[in-house]
């Protein structure tokens, strides 16, 4: 029952989202203003929703993928007791609510409310199994890292308010207001917003929380930490494209950070042995690609990748969840192998997901990744080469994962071997639907070179995201680039096949070990930030708190007590003393009065 309600409301949201989408498609974008939310002096912030091309697309992704994952969750989480089950769904639905608020808000404040809401839900769901202390730590880590980003977001908001006194999109992006902003202000605001986005979307240097966030249930990882929440940063920058386009510095920062994250995460993913961790680093890497797209001005390509990524990464996570389910909770790929025969549907859907993410035509990932790579090529050739290298790494680690898990000999225990079984329909059907979407999803953005007017998505988003008038690469070059990348990817897949068909695991050495330990970034952060802060806290606690604050507070208390005792003695109970004291004070006041006058 809990599950039915949980899924039903999301389904209803999905149906409404379709209706909104159809309306928007006919050109009826609108801002719905409900009431005056904050009204301080000249600042007026209304509680308003903006329904346009960008938000309606996100609405579809969130509610559609969200619905499938909800359905999947019913079966995946059924071993929980009813109370916990209810808690799970209430968090999940709260998340959907917050996410919708985030994308529908017509100003940055509403977005920020949703932004905080999804952060909270993420925290609650990562720490869902709160009895495990490690999971709680992961939840804390995610929350704290997000807070750092949120602080930057807030400062950006205040900066906007201070400079132009408004936060609503339509007013901020209007030509008059943009003209009022100095270019330095725009750069600061956009960089601060990007810091916020980097926190939420796990970019360097705030990405380390996302792999740890895999502590949450797998459907949560699929929904929040792959398909929707982590793309909030992309949404925010795509939404603010009018601001970003005015600051070349910020664009470069976004592009380079995105690319660096993409490569860094991809290298780490090469050596991870936890099935969800590999997918997590893959998510970080793909998010890096999206930021790269935004950074080179290809906003619609970035949004396109958000969409296809939502499909195939959700699919991969759900399939991984199915694998974990089949293996009875085992997540270490070294203990899997040869599962292709036992769980066929999972295998096939996982394979489709891998092909899609690797970017092999004509699967969805090909179109979106190609759009990004093309835009990068137009922007800068060096960046293109690095990005292409990243794409190859992606194909390599994904197929490594696929081959280790599904081919070769089974390496788990005998008990697991007998136990292994295909997941129930409630889990496989969402996977199948997502697999179909992963195959076909790219067709909304077919490049010009194949089909005239094929890039329907860019055309659809054009009212929100103006077309970039950049250097246009000739169709021949474009075709050559596609061919090169596709062939290279296929080559890498074949290479992986030879390498991991029959796997032996040994202790990693040298670079392998560094990669396995994620470039030691966590340790570095621990040394640089956590330890000194703890030390400082301990210092304040032991020295400042004890000897300064405590003494001050207690001292005041003691002083009051002492004064109280002394003053009490004046109250002797004798009328004579009272009259005398009164007369003496009267005389004093008289003296004071007549001496003031002089």
């Amino acid at each position, binding site marked *: 029952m809990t599950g039915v309600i949980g899924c039903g409301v999301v389904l209803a949201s999905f149906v409404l989202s379709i209706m909104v989408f159809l309306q928007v498609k006919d050109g009826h974008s609108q801002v719905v203003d409900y009431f005056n939310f904050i009204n301080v002096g000249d600042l007026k912030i209304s509680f308003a929703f903006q329904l346009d091309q960008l938000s309606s697309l996100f609405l579809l992704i969130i509610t559609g993928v969200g619905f499938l994952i909800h359905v999947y969750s019913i079966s995946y989480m059924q071993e929980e007791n009813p109370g916990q089950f209810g808690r799970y769904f209430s968090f999940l639905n709260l998340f959907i609510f917050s996410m919708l608020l985030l994308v529908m808000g017509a100003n940055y404040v509403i977005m920020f409310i949703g932004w905080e809401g999804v952060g909270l839900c993420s925290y609650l769901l990562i720490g869902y199994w709160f009895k495990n202390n490690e999971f709680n730590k992961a939840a804390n880590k995610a929350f704290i890292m997000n807070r750092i980003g949120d602080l930057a977001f807030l400062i950006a908001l205040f900066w906007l308010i201070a400079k132009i006194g408004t936060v609503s999109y339509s007013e901020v992006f209007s030509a008059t207001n943009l003209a009022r902003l100095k270019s330095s202000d725009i750069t600061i605001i956009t960089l601060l917003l990007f810091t916020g986005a980097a926190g939420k979307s796990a970019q360097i240097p705030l990405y380390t929380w996302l792999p740890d966030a895999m502590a949450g249930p797998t459907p949560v990882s699929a929904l929040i930490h792959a398909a929707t929440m982590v793309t909030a940063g992309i949404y925010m920058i795509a939404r603010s494209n009018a601001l970003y386009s005015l600051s070349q510095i910020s664009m470069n920062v976004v592009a380079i950070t995105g690319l660096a994250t993409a490569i860094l995460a991809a290298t780490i993913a090469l050596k991870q042995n936890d099935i969800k961790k590999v997918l997590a680093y893959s998510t970080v890497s793909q998010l890096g690609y999206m930021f790269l797209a935004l950074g080179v001005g290809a906003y619609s390509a970035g949004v396109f990748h958000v969409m296809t990524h939502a499909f195939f990464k959700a699919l991969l996570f759900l399939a991984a969840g199915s694998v974990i389910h089949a293996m009875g909770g085992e997540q270490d790929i070294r203990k899997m192998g040869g599962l292709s025969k036992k769980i066929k549907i999972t295998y096939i859907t996982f394979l489709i997901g891998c092909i899609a993410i690797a970017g092999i035509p004509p699967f969805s990932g090909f179109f979106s990744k190609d759009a990004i790579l093309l835009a990068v090529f137009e922007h800068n050739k060096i960046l293109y080469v690095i990005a292409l290298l990243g794409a190859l790494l992606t194909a390599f680690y994904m197929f490594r994962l696929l081959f280790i898990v599904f081919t070769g000999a089974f390496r788990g225990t005998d008990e697991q071997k007998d136990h292994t079984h295909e997941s129930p329909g409630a889990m496989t059907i969402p996977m199948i639907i997502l697999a179909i979407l992963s195959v076909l999803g790219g067709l909304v953005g077919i490049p010009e070179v194949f089909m005239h007017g094929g890039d329907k998505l860019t055309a659809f988003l054009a009212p929100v995201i103006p077309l970039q008038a950049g250097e246009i690469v000739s169709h021949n070059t474009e075709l050559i680039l596609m061919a090169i990348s596709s062939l290279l990817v296929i080559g890498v897949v074949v290479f992986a096949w030879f390498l991991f068909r029959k796997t032996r695991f040994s202790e990693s050495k040298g670079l392998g070990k560094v990669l396995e330990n994620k470039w030691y970034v966590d340790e570095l952060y621990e040394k640089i930030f956590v330890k000194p802060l703890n030390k400082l806290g301990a210092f304040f606690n032991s020295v400042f708190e004890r000897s300064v604050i405590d003494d001050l507070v207690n001292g005041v208390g003691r002083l*009051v*007590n002492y004064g109280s005792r002394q003053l009490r003695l004046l109250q002797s109970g004798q009328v004579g003393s009272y009259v005398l*004291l009164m007369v003496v004070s009267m005389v004093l006041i008289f003296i004071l*009065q007549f001496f003031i*006058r002089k």
Partner: protein
Amino acid sequence: MNALLLSAVLGVVMMFSGIWLKSKSAIRNVAIVGMALLLVVNILEMSGMIFFRIDTKGMIVFDRFALLFDSIAFLSTLLYLFLSAQDIEKVGINYADYFALIFFILCGITLTSSFKSLLILFLGVEIISIPLYILTGSDKRNLKSNEASLKYFLLGSFSTGLMLMGIALIYGDKGSFDTNSINLITETPSALIVAGMLLLLFSMAFKVSAAPFHFWAPDVYDGAPTVFTSFMATIVKAAVFIAFIRLFEEAFGNLQNKWQLLMAIITVATLFIGNITAVFQQSVKRMLAYSSIAQAGFMMLSVYAMNAEAKEGLLLYSAAYSFATIGIFAVLIKMKDYTFDGFNGFAKHQPLLAATTTIFLLSLAGIPLTAGFLAKFYMLKAALGTGKYLWLVIFAVIMAAVSVYYYFRVIQAMYFKEGDPPVLQITPVFKWTLVILAALVILLGIFPNLLLTWYYF
């Protein structure tokens, strides 16, 4: 004028009802109905229905300020009677006369809140004071009550003497009792005027228990029967404050530079002595006596500031303070043990009473969302509005923080300590009146304009 005459008549009626009516409840009901009538008649006068038009030769003027305060005082007294009328009867055998004296005090209050002539001020203050001496000593079987009454009488007469001397000096210089003609000062004021003003200042400070003329207050409030302490520490004190601010605005408004520093000093002394001494008390009743001195310190801020906000704030403060204090005293009367420990575990056995008491204490401490907070806020704002003596405001805020300590001791005892306090019988009327009082305290804390709009329309 309605209220003035009716309260005097009611005083006489109550006196005779003691002879004619034999049952306690009949007398009590006459008193409550009379009180309600008094309130209604006063509100009617506020809306323009004046039953008696008497030419007072400019000695009494019923302006909005006076009428609104009278309404507050009558409403407080009505609620007070609902809560404590039965306890008044328990004090002694002359209960009908106690009610009569209360009505005479109200008659004095209508005079002091609307006087234009120093003579009327003096008579009003005396009509308030003399019944209070009697009420303080009404528990004749109790030595402490007798002692308190005598002390109050002696010291009160002393202050009355000061007031008379002050009035005489002023009359000697100006040849008039009229406040407006006293205020007409063109050249530098003569020593007679200044000395007279100071003597009036002393006597008024005495009546509101401002330091260093507060010595009577703890002993009298502690010694008097608790029901009457409740009345005189709240409604009467607020009324004298209204007279105080009126006197210094209308008669000495032009001499502000002469007395403002003195007021500031008296305010600081009152806040300091009231708050600091209250900290050490072991008895809740005595703590409340000192707290009433501390609250008087806050009300002194309005006399010091003497601007539009100060007058508004004083009205709000008198309502907030009266409601809360009446409520606390009413609960206190029901207790057997007046020490802080007597409240241990009160919340478990009387959750409703404990909750309302908590609201009253929070209001007295000036915690937001209660009337007490806004009242204090108005006072501080008024004091800031003068643009002088910032230290005074800072000091007041610090003292407000100190006051939280002793108010919260009661809350702590009620909620966080174990115990089984014996409580007298509680009637439903009592409970409902307490709830109404608590609701008023919170309502005024959120919408102070419910009260203050009456001041302007």
